[in-house]
């Protein structure tokens, strides 16, 4: 999740069941790719009526999808630190992304 000033608000990584630890050298690459995709998100969000952009950008084997939403968190642009939220995201991620 990214705030108005291109600042990451929430990050989470889902790994296939087999892998327990992601490769460290990819962690920063994920950020690079996500950040770079913002340019295309900015461009595409005005072209589509949908809140969801399925594949907005890709880099090698990484595909970037985007979803626009209002920030429901009490402080705009502040990092989201909530274990409940994290758990929920974890659950949904497992269900939809890995399942």
């Amino acid at each position, binding site marked *: 999740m990214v705030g108005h*000033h*291109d*600042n*990451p608000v929430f990050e989470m990584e889902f790994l296939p069941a087999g892998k327990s630890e992601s490769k*460290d050298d990819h*962690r*920063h690459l*994920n*950020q*690079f*790719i996500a*950040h*770079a*995709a*913002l*340019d*295309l998100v*900015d*461009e595409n969000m005005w072209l589509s009526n949908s809140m969801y952009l399925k594949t907005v950008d890709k*880099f090698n084997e990484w595909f970037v999808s985007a979803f626009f939403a209002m920030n429901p968190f009490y402080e705009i642009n502040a*990092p989201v630190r909530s274990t409940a939220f994290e758990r929920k995201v974890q659950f949904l991620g497992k269900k939809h992304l890995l399942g």
Partner: protein
Amino acid sequence: MAQCVQSVQEFVQDSFVPMVAVLCSEEAERVTRKNNLNFAELLRPFCKLTSEGHIRDPNNQVQVVKNLRICINNVVTSPNTASAALSPSQRRLLNEVVLACQPQEGAVTNAITAGDYDLNFSDHSLKASLPWYSVWRETLLEVSTSEHCTATTPWFETYRENFLQSMPASDHEFLNHYLACLLVVSSTEAVPVEQFLKLSQEQHRIQHSGEYTNPKWFIPNTLKYYVLLHDMSEGDEQRAETVYEDMKQRYGPQGCYLLKMNSRTLSTEEDEQIPDPWSQYLHRNNLHNQEILDDLTVNSAPVENSVGAAEVDYPHSTEKDGVSNSLESHPLQLDTVSSPGSLHTLSALNTAVKKGARDPECVAGGAGSHGACLTLNDHDHIRQFIQEFTSRGLLPHIEKNIRQLNDQLVSRKGLSRSLFTATKKWFGGGKAPEKSISEPKSTFGLLYPPEAPELQIRKMADLCFLVQHYELAYNCYHTAKKDFLSDQAMLYAAGALEMAAVSAFLQAGAPRPYPSHYMDTAIQTYRDVCKNMVLAERSALLSAEILKSQGKYSEAATLLIKMTSEDSDLRSALLLEQAAHCFINMRNPMVRKFAFHMILAGHRFSKAGQRKHALRCYSQAMQVYKERGWSLAEDHINFTIGRQSFTLRQPDNAVIAFKQILTNDSRQTATQQGAFLREYLYVYKSVIGGNELSLPQLPLPCIHSSATRVYFGHERRLAEGEKQAATHVSLDQEYDQDLAAMWCRLEEQIVASDNRGIVPANFQPSQCCLNSQTDNLRHPLAVVEEPVIVEVTFRNPLKVPLALSNLSLLWRFTADGSAPSQVETTEESEADFITNEETLDIEMTQKDDIVTTETILDFHMGPEETKMARLRLLPHRTGQLNIVGVVYNLAEASPGEIAPSTDGQHTMDLMVVRGKQDLKIQGPRLNLTKEDKMLVRHGPDRRLDPIITASMPLMEVFFLQFPTALLCGEIRKAYVEFCNVSSVPLCGLRVASTHPDFFTFGSQATTPLTPLSPTSAENCSAYKTLAMTPQPGSVASEMLVSAEDFSQLSSVMEIPIGGKALQPGESIQLPLWLRGPDQEGVHEINFLFYYQSTEKGNKISHRVLRHTVFICASRSLSVQASASRSSVPPHHSVDAKGSGGTLVFIDVENINTSESGVREFHIVQVSSSSQHWRLHKCINPARDTDCKLTSRKRAKLCFRATRCKPQQATSDTIERYTFADLNLGNERIISSSTPCGDFFFRCRPRNPEPKLVTSSRTSSSCKIQSPEDRATDLTNMVKKCNELDLNIIVIWKAFVVEDNKQLILEGQLHVALQTIGKEATSLTPKEEAQEMVLLKFKSELPLPVALGSVELSQLIKTNLHYPETYTHPFVQDSLCLVPVTLTLSNCSMALVDVFIDLRHKSNSQESLEVHNSFTWVGQTQYKMQLKPQEVLCLTLRACFLQAGVYNINTPRVFAKPAKQVALSETSQQTASPALIIINNA
């Protein structure tokens, strides 16, 4: 160097230019060598034509050729066949040119703002800063100024130019095949014509012998152009002219040329500044040599011969067509062979050095200069020569060939194209299978032999293209493309497609849009079918440039990104960077894409060994990522920047980058952080390896500077033997705002008491410990030879432990008098201060004569730990001290052990660096003026800038036998010791306390001579006693004491230390009596000791010492007392006349809880103290003299109190108190002496209100009801008559068993009896705070309080005196008359009107019955006035009619104060029934 800022058209056009070969005779080579150039190089700056050329196309239309550039190269023969990839040497060359081309440091920056982002680019090419450039570029280069490329990446342009020029000639296209050959012979030659012949044969041999596949020639019949070179300085001009004439005869005037040059003599025109147009064509100049060397040494293995070669130019290695010139070989070139491949440049350089040393010309011309023998005229000659050659030789030659090819093609067109192909099909494909056999590389389609007819159209297209006839070229390429495609000759087709696209783009007036799909197909074919990355790259470069010129940045970026591949890091890096620039040049700049591709480019640059470029890319990208929370990305960038900076010998930048990684909120793993830390330490170490004077700042651990606390003075001693030291202030205590305010109040009280009750205006509370909450606006005052302790809060942000060592404070010191203006730290005169900073590396103790600096040897910090370090300074001189920072060694703690080991062995192999960190504390934000509120301003915070003042006295206070738990009211004797531990005497010792009733030092007048030594006084009573066994009926012993003797009634006490001052080293021990607080629970009792120096005028006026004790008070006894008027008539009392008799009842209850181990309490004495009353005697009926109370037992004591002698009471100038002691035990405690008396006075409520409390309350309520004064007077008067003001002191002993030992504790409880009839208790009433009070919005009117009967009934006391039994013979006399005396005593001090009514007026049924046979006879109503305290007896007669028991207490007495007319008389309260028994005789 690609200095030319070209238009796209120019760029594309110049990418394909006619190629001209050069063959030089040795003599001619020698002549040109004088200029430090070979012949081809000599011509190179002039190869762009300034004038238009003309050509006639096959249709006889004149075609203008503008800005034609030709390319002249020495012939390099090689048997190599063209390959699809660049040769290693070519790659190396490209790598070098890119390496050499770096942005200039400190160039003007370009700022781009895109959305949220501001970006700066500092990479302008060098051109703008070379002063001669702008002057010469018109004359030399004819650069088109019409349109500049936006790219500011000269390294890319250089790369591109070199790449295009190093393209291997290929068979499927003719563009870079040689069209002509210059044969150059010197006029000094013996027989020049022979030389020409030789060269001509040589050319023919090279082209036609079949020995060499390279160079390739365009047409079999290559144009030969004969050039006679004449050296003006040495040759005979006449002869040259003759030879030239002969040549013209032989080769025709358009086939030869006489070039005169070298007219400059060294001596004459020494100072003429001739520009050097060659330098930019020779890729490098001196400017870059050093850097290249640096980079090369960094990049590769050690090189022996690199040393000393730095300063020299090395032109030969830089030629685009390779190192070796076939005609110029040098013996030293063997070096090249012997050195490793990548070091070839260096070896060549070495060669140049040696040669330069030998060659006088070179030396004379300066190491780096070219064309030293040429004048400007010579330059013109060369330019004219090129002009002539092109327009007379080359262009007609091309024109002729185009014509020929066209004729061929036209003749062949007779056969229809379709037929041509059909024939091929019908007759089995003609040569197709043959070719596929001959060429094994059939994977990418058909290959034609060089002179195949299919290639003729391509050849014609290429010729047209070279002479800018783009329309014809396009048509030809288009046709060729179709042919090649139908033949499935993919390479050829791709080539045709590429050039068709380019031609279409270059056509003037753009009849058709640029067919970018042609280019895309070409690129794809080159790359995927032909596997020829070089050609694919060329197409991509061209296409990207064209797309960019049309604003199609997105397409250009995609194209460039597609061209990145694993086979060439350098190409990928450059193209990614260009793609990044495309993103930022878009109409809506894609900054984030830019940044990402810069990162990718940087990554590839670094893989390609281009560290500087990599660093630049990362740094530019960093502008986008920084401070936005992409911490992993940021860490990656910083780490790369750090590494690259370090290897590029920019350790300062490296340190900054690593610092960022370590201090940012890191999300890295512990292992990663550890690696970062080690890297940082390593880099840092190499930075401070330099001889820097001041230590650099360390980023770790973080200092929480506002949490810094400063403590002035010695650290307190907790105890010394049995002595317990004053708690004072310490860093271990938390700051508490309320406590601080409390101490401040106490200090104010003391200061005021020392200053005639006024707190001075400049009063500042003493602050020993400063923190963020204290007032730090002023410089704190510290005392010389007393330590200053600074507590610094460190936080380790990392997940790895840190080991700090040799940690100490950094300070600056300005001695008193050296700089008078120094008081304000803002104005600092640099020269005068002394600091301990420089000496740190050399010797720690060097400045210890001024300020001793303590060092903490080991300070270990766990992962993410916050830890405080206390660092001490001991100033030895007076002046201004500024604590500026901390200095320490930083190392990574070995993760295995957490505790620091003392030997320090383990730190030896770890990286340890030394550095400092500043302590800068921002003061509180100002909020006073409007400006303060508008801006964010901060006040000063001076807690680290103490002023060191001259010696002050220093006192320590110790307590002996000081209890921690007491019973309520318990009296204990303790000792207190005051020591002057300083070198100056102290005086003015005082103490203030929050609980002044808790302790007393005793009063001088009454202090008993108890032994001073605490040990000998053990088990003695704290009281002063006299042996005296109580006798039955004994009366109280009395003592008259003035309250003045116990004068210290305020909360501030002077401490009686005997003499005036406590001398240095002296100490004094004083007894201290304590009394347990009356309320149970834990009490915090604070003492503030105050003292001064005997010398006046110090900066510090006084000093204070704090002490806090906690006393746990447990319940002892509860004493309740009440007083009532004695009903005994005055004449019955033994020794007191008048109305003095008052009974005092005292209820004592043991309310102690069993836990405290108290077995029983004994009431040993009851004393009274009052100004007006005294206890007279014990009238307990039980007569148990020793009142023992076990747990929960209750006892009642009864006493009679009398008024004091009147003269004592009336002498009211001083308050004199009568102490009366009634001992119940065997000894009498003298209550008027210390400590009993002291505590009596100390425990009295401090304001003398108690007697006024009730009255004032009443009066205030009266005031509301009736504002008249008389009412108040009356009330007071009425009150007064009930006032008692008798203070009871109950002294007890408690028998306590503790550790199987019996202890006797003693204590006293006070009860103040204010009013008769009102009960008072020793326990302070529990406040019922819990009770909820209803919120009222309207204040209720107080109920009207009438001066009730209760009050008025107290005015007069009545007594009836009569015989208890009276026997009367009713038989004889039916009326029985009994005399009864009614005694009236006026209790008040006023005149009272009394009205007595004896008339029977009973309402109750019961009394009616009784009174039927009883009546008063005689006068039944009396009216009289009683004087104050007057006693009056009235004799009444009661008449009884029959025998029986009667209550004769029926007289109703009304009283009112005299003169109170308005007030109705009120019935006096009747006493208990007065019974009389009448017997019948």
